[in-house]
């Protein structure tokens, strides 16, 4: 029962979704939309598990006074303050996402700069990685180097100032060879996902039950 019921649930939900896609009539027609709403609700509850895991992990660090435990205190304070401000925004403004809500202060002045700077920081690490990766050791490595340089130069004003070739070549690379390989990879990955989905629905792939 511990394995057969979950396997049956997976089979039935998977088959219902596929059937409702191909049979857009009652009772299957509205089933897809209903199952997607149910999926969102169940997924919402999984957020609680994730948050619980995060809080427990950092609570343990604080309790054991692990090195850097005060970082965990900052994390917990940040989490608690955001949730409290979200709830206050819901109570006082009808929505935490109302522009006057204090929750949006956290979003605008904390999450946006932290996220933006975190990703901007990657520019330096990507540049450092490119120094190691972009070495013309053989023909294909040279192709990697040349296409990256053309795309980088073609997307900034200095590229056009050097030569009109760079913007035009950049556009052609993005529209033809880059698109071709990306399309091939996407088709391959999608077919792989379809076969994996079939394996899951038919109960051949069961690793999610362990």
């Amino acid at each position, binding site marked *: 029962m511990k394995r057969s*019921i*979950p396997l049956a*649930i997976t089979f039935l*939900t*998977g*088959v*219902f*979704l*596929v059937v409702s896609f191909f049979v857009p009539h009652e009772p299957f027609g509205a089933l897809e939309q*209903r*199952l997607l*709403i*149910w999926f969102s*609700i*169940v997924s*919402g*509850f*999984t957020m609680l598990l994730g948050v619980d895991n995060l809080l427990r992990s950092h609570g343990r660090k604080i309790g054991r006074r692990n090195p850097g435990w005060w970082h965990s205190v*900052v*994390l917990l304070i*940040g*989490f608690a303050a955001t*949730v409290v401000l979200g709830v206050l925004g819901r109570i006082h403004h009808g929505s935490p996402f109302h522009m*006057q809500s204090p*929750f949006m*202060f*956290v979003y*605008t*002045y*904390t*999450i946006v*700069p*932290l*996220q*933006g*700077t975190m990703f901007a*920081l990657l520019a330096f690490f*990507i540049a450092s990685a490119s120094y190691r990766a972009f070495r013309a050791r053989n023909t294909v490595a040279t*192709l990697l180097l040349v*296409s990256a340089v053309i795309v980088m130069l073609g*997307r900034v004003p200095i590229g056009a100032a050097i030569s009109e070739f760079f913007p035009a070549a950049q556009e052609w*690379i*993005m529209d*033809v*060879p*880059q698109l*071709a*390989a*990306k*399309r091939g*990879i996407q088709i*391959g*990955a999608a077919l792989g*996902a*379809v076969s994996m*989905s*079939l394996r*899951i629905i038919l109960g051949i792939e069961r690793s*999610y*039950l362990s």
Partner: protein
Amino acid sequence: MGSPVVMVIGTWLAGFLTLAILSFLYKDNPFYKLAEHLYVGVSAGYWLIYVAFFDVEPMLIDTFMTETGVEKWLILIPGALGLIMLSRWFPRTAWLSRWPIAFTVGIGAGLGITANLQGYVVPQVEATLIPLSGWNLVSLSNLILIVGVVTTLLYFYFSKPHKGVLGGAARVGVVFIMISFGASFGYTLMARISLLIGRLYFLLHDLLHVLD
């Protein structure tokens, strides 16, 4: 949130956090650690509120409160599955959480078939069936595109050894893949640099008022 004092405090807070993250370029330090952990905590809180407000409240609670008849009671099924998911907190009943997991995996698998075929395979194949009429640059580009798609797919075909015609096609596929990776790399780097310029502009314009 709109008062000038609040905006000034917010701008200084954002400026401090921006500099704290950028300080990692020197080395790992307490300011970076503080900003990093704050980011994780605040993001977790943000997404919890987001999910509660946009998913659970309108789809579950509001539906239960407003709907009548069968719909009112049907919506309790995902609610119950959600609560069963929380059985992982109790070791004796943790196995029950496989039911909602199986439900979400089943939905994901069902979508994995229909959405991938409808959203990726068919449109991408359709977009590759392009005209090769006449001797001009457009036809040449189209031919290169078709050759690129087919040879890239053949490169990832591992059911036969890459020898003979298949090996030759796979080698052509590698050329396209490397050009694509290089282009994607350059594109990503420029996007990150654009973000960096945005953060530097914030520091120099919004915080320090050095730039107009």
